């Protein structure tokens, strides 16, 4: 049963999955705390257009994803002021991106499998180069998140006092959305565009219901994301069903009872 670990594609999957889980769990905590989960969802769909465009011009899809989502993330950060309107604006840009993605895919004469793997993840088909790219981006993202941790949390909870105390609230907000874009682009390799919530929101939402201090909640979120990913890859490698199905199902099965037990009025 554990003989699967001798295959390099399984090793690659575990390595990439681990990096993505750590980044997703970490960034996800702030995404939940700032109430930006919809922006995270939208960025993944915008990333679909980027990945499709990259395929069309023959570049690694991750770079197309990064380019599209980082520009969109910065845009949401810069123009997003009125929170009430924001979801509508993001939604309209998101559907435009999906339309473009559909166009790029139809222009692309390659295999339809490529589009499928962008939508649902392709963790078991990851190359050694992709592992290294993911690792480098992941380490950089975690490093920046660690540096901005306190002021970002302060400005997420109490932007007015944070600003008065000299925290660059607006700049941090924009930087954070760019980091979300990076996290989304990485997560797509594992769970795909359509299931981004399973890694970016599921673990964080579960963790914040269980642990009430910020460092503890981030640790729990990262721990859960790692557990879901490892278990999902293991089950997929030993069984016949896709990784994405397992991770999404585990995420749901863990969240549901916790949501019900900790239900608040």
């Amino acid at each position, binding site marked *: 049963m554990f003989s699967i670990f001798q295959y390099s594609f399984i090793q690659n999957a575990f390595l990439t999955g681990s990096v993505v889980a750590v980044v997703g769990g970490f960034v996800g905590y702030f995404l939940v705390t700032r109430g930006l989960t919809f922006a995270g969802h939208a960025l993944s769909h915008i990333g679909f257009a980027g990945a499709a465009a990259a395929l069309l011009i023959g570049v690694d899809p991750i770079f197309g994803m990064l380019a599209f989502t980082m520009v969109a993330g910065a845009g949401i950060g810069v123009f997003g002021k009125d929170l009430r309107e924001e979801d509508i604006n993001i939604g309209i840009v998101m559907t435009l991106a999906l339309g473009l993605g559909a166009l790029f895919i139809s222009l692309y004469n390659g295999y339809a499998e490529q589009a499928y793997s962008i939508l649902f993840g392709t963790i078991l088909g990851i190359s050694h180069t992709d592992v290294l790219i993911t690792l480098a981006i992941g380490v950089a993202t975690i490093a920046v998140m660690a540096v901005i941790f*306190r002021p970002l949390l302060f400005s997420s*909870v109490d932007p007015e006092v*944070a600003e008065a*105390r000299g925290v660059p609230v607006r700049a941090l907000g924009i930087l954070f959305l760019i980091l979300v874009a990076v996290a989304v682009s990485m997560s797509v390799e594992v769970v795909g565009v359509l299931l981004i919530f399973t890694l970016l929101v599921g673990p964080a939402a579960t963790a914040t219901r269980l642990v009430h*201090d910020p460092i503890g909640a981030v640790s729990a979120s990262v721990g859960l994301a790692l557990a879901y990913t490892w278990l999902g890859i293991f089950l997929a490698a030993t069984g016949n069903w896709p990784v994405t199905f397992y991770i999404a199902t585990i995420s749901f099965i863990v969240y549901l009872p916790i949501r019900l037990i900790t239900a*608040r009025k």
Partner: protein
Amino acid sequence: MDQKTVISLDGVTVELGGRTIFDAVNFSVEKGEFVAILGPNGAGKTTLFKLLLGLLKPTKGEINVLGAVPHRGDGNIGYAPQHRVLETDLALRARDVVGFGLDGNKWGIGFGSKKRDAMIDAVLKEVDAYQFADAPVGHLSGGEQQRLLIAQALITDPKILLLDEPLSNLDISHAQEIIALLTEISKHRSVTIMLVSHDINPLLPAANRVLYMAHGHSAMGTPDEIITSATLSKLYDTKVEVIRSGDHVFVVGAEI
């Protein structure tokens, strides 16, 4: 500026988007004073705080806070903005919110220390909030959350406390508790308090002076001097009547 004056405004005019919020406002506040700020919505009470915090520059005039031009990030000013209720799903304990006041503006994760915990515990005890130090903030009542915000503003041991409507969303008995707490803090820390409120009555026993703002102008003095039909009528430029009944005052004909 003499030693006792901590805040002074001299001919301060503020125009925002073509609208004059302040029109040549003058006043000064002395060390240890408890000033209640009253006035209708849009009269510039929050704008005043932004000026004092250095978040906004006046169009004309001079502002002096603790002997200097106001500047952002001044640990000598504790600030609690108009409070929105903290969401229930936040993974934050009461002590984390208070800790922001101490080092929330510093880079890095910040794993804390015994010394930091002791400082937070001390200020939580001072505002009588120690018993829920480890509770998630979303589970606390409005009055309890207000105590935390005061503790957060106090933890840097400021010389001035700016509190924007700390009494809104509180019933009268909780409002009185907060005012008693602030009176106590003002006395033993000799901190200057400026507090925005929509109701003068609970503040009458506590406030040394009242700053009344309306229509770009302001009037400052003891409650007895300011809350009068004559002063308010002049400020609002319409007939306003102040009715006194026992220990209460009621302003009729204008929105406070």
